[in-house]
């Protein structure tokens, strides 16, 4: 162990190239993961924040929040189904918001809700809204009055919420009547009557199995499609395809990164064959050399991860607002573990060579 660390310290320059290459791969992996997470989180916040585990769509809407319609009659029928504790209506209108003092129109999602949303207080009075923190970048602040839609309906921001966006548009949480006004002015062809929402979120009574309840609701009410919150999130347009694309890319990148890491560690070992030969000649066992290798792999990877992580964090901080990049702890951990495994595998490949080194040949004079 000590030998390993001493070599790292005294012969730092020999390990710099490998560490650098590793750090770069870490940056690549963190960025990829960060972009995927960012795209995903900023598109699905509104639905992920719902506390009720089930959501009812009208079945012709094919799980689209925008197209679905839940009338008061349907709602009454749902609430009559045994196992339903309570329901909360939700609707979203994607409109432009004029922010005083700003030239560009902000992309907003006006969300009409009744309650049971994680991190969002009870609905504010008409004309008031809770704004998602991401709208800060658009110039919105507490007390700002954002004017939304073609008729510039005023919404005064009275509080912040976070991670509640829909399709990357900044969420403005309002009481249902305000939302219906916005919807009607922006999309006259999609106007809804009083009491109608787009989706209905359902909380089951304690002890009720949600899957069974979903099926029961659809059977009893007819013309509805009830699914879980997670499925609703996946049904948001573009999400499945984005995830699939990025996941494939991340998978291939990890694989390639692992091979590149292995290559570098193999080369590093090759470079030190003579050194290992001498060590063996003076009595070091293969096992001790293996420990050296593993220790060094871990230390180099840790340093590379540190450097790569710092660069990654810096990138996230300087990224402009339109770049949806978020570094989540689970992603950071995932990359750390992945890279460590790759480094150990690479070191393992070189292990065979080390075991085969003949100390007598190693201390002979060079060619």
């Amino acid at each position: 162990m000590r030998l390993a660390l001493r070599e790292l310290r005294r012969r730092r320059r020999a390990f710099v190239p490998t560490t650098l290459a590793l750090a770069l791969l870490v940056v690549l992996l963190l960025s990829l993961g960060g972009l995927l997470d960012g795209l995903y989180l900023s598109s699905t916040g509104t639905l992920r924040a719902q506390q009720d585990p089930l959501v009812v769509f009208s079945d012709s809407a094919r799980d689209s929040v925008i197209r679905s319609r839940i009338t008061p009659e349907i709602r009454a029928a749902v609430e009559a189904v045994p196992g339903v504790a309570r329901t909360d209506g939700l609707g979203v209108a994607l409109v432009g918001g004029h922010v005083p003092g700003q030239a560009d129109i902000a992309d907003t999602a006006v969300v009409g809700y009744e309650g049971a949303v994680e991190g969002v207080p009870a609905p504010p009075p008409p004309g008031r809204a809770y704004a998602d923190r991401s709208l800060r970048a658009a110039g919105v602040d507490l007390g700002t009055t954002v004017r939304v839609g073609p008729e510039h309906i005023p919404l005064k921001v009275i509080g912040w919420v976070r991670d509640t966006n829909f399709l990357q548009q900044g969420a403005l949480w309002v009481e249902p009547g305000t939302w219906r006004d916005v919807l009607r002015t922006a999309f006259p062809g999609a106007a809804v009557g009083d009491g109608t929402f787009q989706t209905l979120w359902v909380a089951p009574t304690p002890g009720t199995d949600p899957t069974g309840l979903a099926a029961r609701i659809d059977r009893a009410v007819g013309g509805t499609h009830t699914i879980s919150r997670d499925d609703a999130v996946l049904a948001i347009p573009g999400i499945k395809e984005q995830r699939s694309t990025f996941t494939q890319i991340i998978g291939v990148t990890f694989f390639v990164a692992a091979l590149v890491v292995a290559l570098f560690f193999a080369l590093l070992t090759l470079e030190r064959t003579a050194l290992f030969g001498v060590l063996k000649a003076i009595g070091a066992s293969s096992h001790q050399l293996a420990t050296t290798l593993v220790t060094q792999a871990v230390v180099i990877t840790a340093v590379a991860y540190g450097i790569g992580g710092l660069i990654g964090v810096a990138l996230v901080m300087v990224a402009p607002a339109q770049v949806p990049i978020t570094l989540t702890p689970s992603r950071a951990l995932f990359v750390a573990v992945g890279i460590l495994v790759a480094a150990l595998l690479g070191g393992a490949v070189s292990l065979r060579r080390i075991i085969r080194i003949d100390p007598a040949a190693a201390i002979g004079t060079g060619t």
Partner: protein
Amino acid sequence: MPALQLRDVRKTYTSGDSEIVALDHATLTVGSDEILALVGPSGSGKTTLLSIAGGLLSPTSGTVSVGDHDITGYSGKELTRFRREQVGFVFQTVNLVPFLTARENIMVAAELSGRGTARSTRERADQLLGELGLGQRGDNLPAQLSGGERQRVAIGRALMNEPPLILVDEPTSALDTRLGTQVMELIVGEVKRRHTAAVIVTHDTRMTHYADRTVEILDGTLAA
């Protein structure tokens, strides 16, 4: 025309505040087909002298001539060319390019001079391999050759471009007496056959009788 002429050559290095004198007022002449043995303990400056003669180092003061080339003020490029064509150097350890076969190692100097593709080059290389007793080993890589065989390939490489001066640094230090004798006989035989001059650096006094003349060097100074 002497093969090598050093006049009052001095080589110094600065280390920190002090000045190290590697070679001090060295004057030496080697005839055009003379074999000179340069004898001294390690650290005596013999490798430095050899390096200056071989165009690997420039003297701090004094003049160096090899044949009719005064190389004292040569630029890096000129020295490179000089080393390629006017001198054959057999180093103490690293002598062969590990990824070239014995034959290719011998031919590499000729290739660098642009004569690599000529059939005569290859024929010469094979002839040298034969003279050196390596006729069957031409396609082997250095890793597949014994220490003595590698030494002989290095000698072949030094002789390939038919330079007027051969410089050999400690040819027998890694070999036992029998092999050492073989190598010395080979070097002397080849050099004499070509009427070339040679400077052989050694600290092994058993080998000095192969040379025409022996000069001693101690602490950077040649004995009178």
